[in-house]
């Protein structure tokens, strides 16, 4: 992860544009929307240039509402790169996020220029957004998804897993999501028996287990 942050960006007593940029970025990166809102002026003006066109909104709640709508439900949510800096009186914030939402894995980048009022709060935001860019399966990470749901060993897990992994090229990764308690133990065994490689096993904490399997043959 590339992170470029201004030195002394936390704990500064006087809030210059650079400090404000860092505070806003930190809050967004942690999805602490209440903290992000506290950086904004009550009557903040928000202009967004998104793939669909130019949109505008006003007010701290409405502005933070946009960020919530984009990022609150994503899981996982990873900051790939970010920067917070000052451009002669304006604050500049940039970040690139890799996240998973209802439409699958996405990459998104946003550039923000912030006007900072004399009281240290953000009075205006101009945002340029890449839009959610689906991560194509043949792109560098070569990741594919399979939601096995509640399927267990008695209702076709082995056959369906084999069918799914045979549909991806050797060397690519199939991320299998399962909620079945037996499948959580079974999938790594199944994968090894079939000659594949377990890359990682993650428990996001919502009852699912995510098993990343690299097709080995």
């Amino acid at each position, binding site marked *: 992860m590339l992170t470029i942050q201004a030195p002394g960006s936390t704990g500064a007593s006087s809030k210059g544009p650079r400090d404000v940029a860092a505070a806003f970025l930190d809050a967004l990166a942690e999805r602490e929307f209440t903290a992000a809102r506290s950086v904004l002026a009550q009557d903040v003006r928000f202009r967004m240039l998104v793939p669909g066109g130019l949109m505008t909104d006003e007010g701290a709640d409405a502005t933070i509402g946009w960020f919530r709508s984009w990022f609150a439900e994503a899981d996982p949510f990873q900051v790939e790169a970010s920067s917070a800096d000052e451009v002669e009186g304006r604050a500049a914030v940039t970040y690139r996020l890799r996240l998973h939402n209802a439409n699958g894995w996405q990459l998104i980048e946003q550039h923000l220029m912030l006007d900072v009022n004399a009281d240290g709060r953000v009075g205006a935001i101009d945002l340029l957004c890449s839009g959610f860019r689906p991560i194509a399966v043949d792109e560098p990470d070569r990741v594919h998804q399979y939601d096995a749901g509640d399927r*267990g*060993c*008695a209702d076709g*897990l*082995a056959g369906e897993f084999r069918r799914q992994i045979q549909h991806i090229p050797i060397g690519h990764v199939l991320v299998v999501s399962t909620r*079945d*308690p*037996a*499948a959580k*133990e*079974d*999938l790594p*065994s*199944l994968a*090894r*028996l079939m000659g594949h490689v377990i890359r990682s096993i993650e428990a996001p904490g919502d009852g699912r287990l995510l098993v990343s399997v690299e097709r080995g043959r």
Partner: protein
Amino acid sequence: MSEKLIFNCTYGKEEPERATLPFVAANIAAAAGQDAIVLCTIEAVWLGTKGGTDGVAQPGLPVLGHLYAEFIDNGGQVWLCGACAKPRGITEDQLEKGSTIVGAAKVVEEVVAGAKTVAFA
């Protein structure tokens, strides 16, 4: 090469002798430092749930609840057949300490790797 010893148990509290005997053998293995597993299938999956061994006692054999705890303390594991647990509505949060719900592939992988199985009819 798997060094595991897998003892199959298929009966629950309706057959206390048959339910207890695999744990007796497995506990001896665990106490002797072996990597011992009781694989519970069919009605035996209840034995790995909280309270599942309550009242299971066959004259002449250890009380199963005590034996289960001793087996786990000795490093033993209890595997519950996932295909048997699911239709009985057994979920992970009902499991007793030392029990895990597993699928067939887990067992097959161990056997392929050299685990020895002991069946109790």
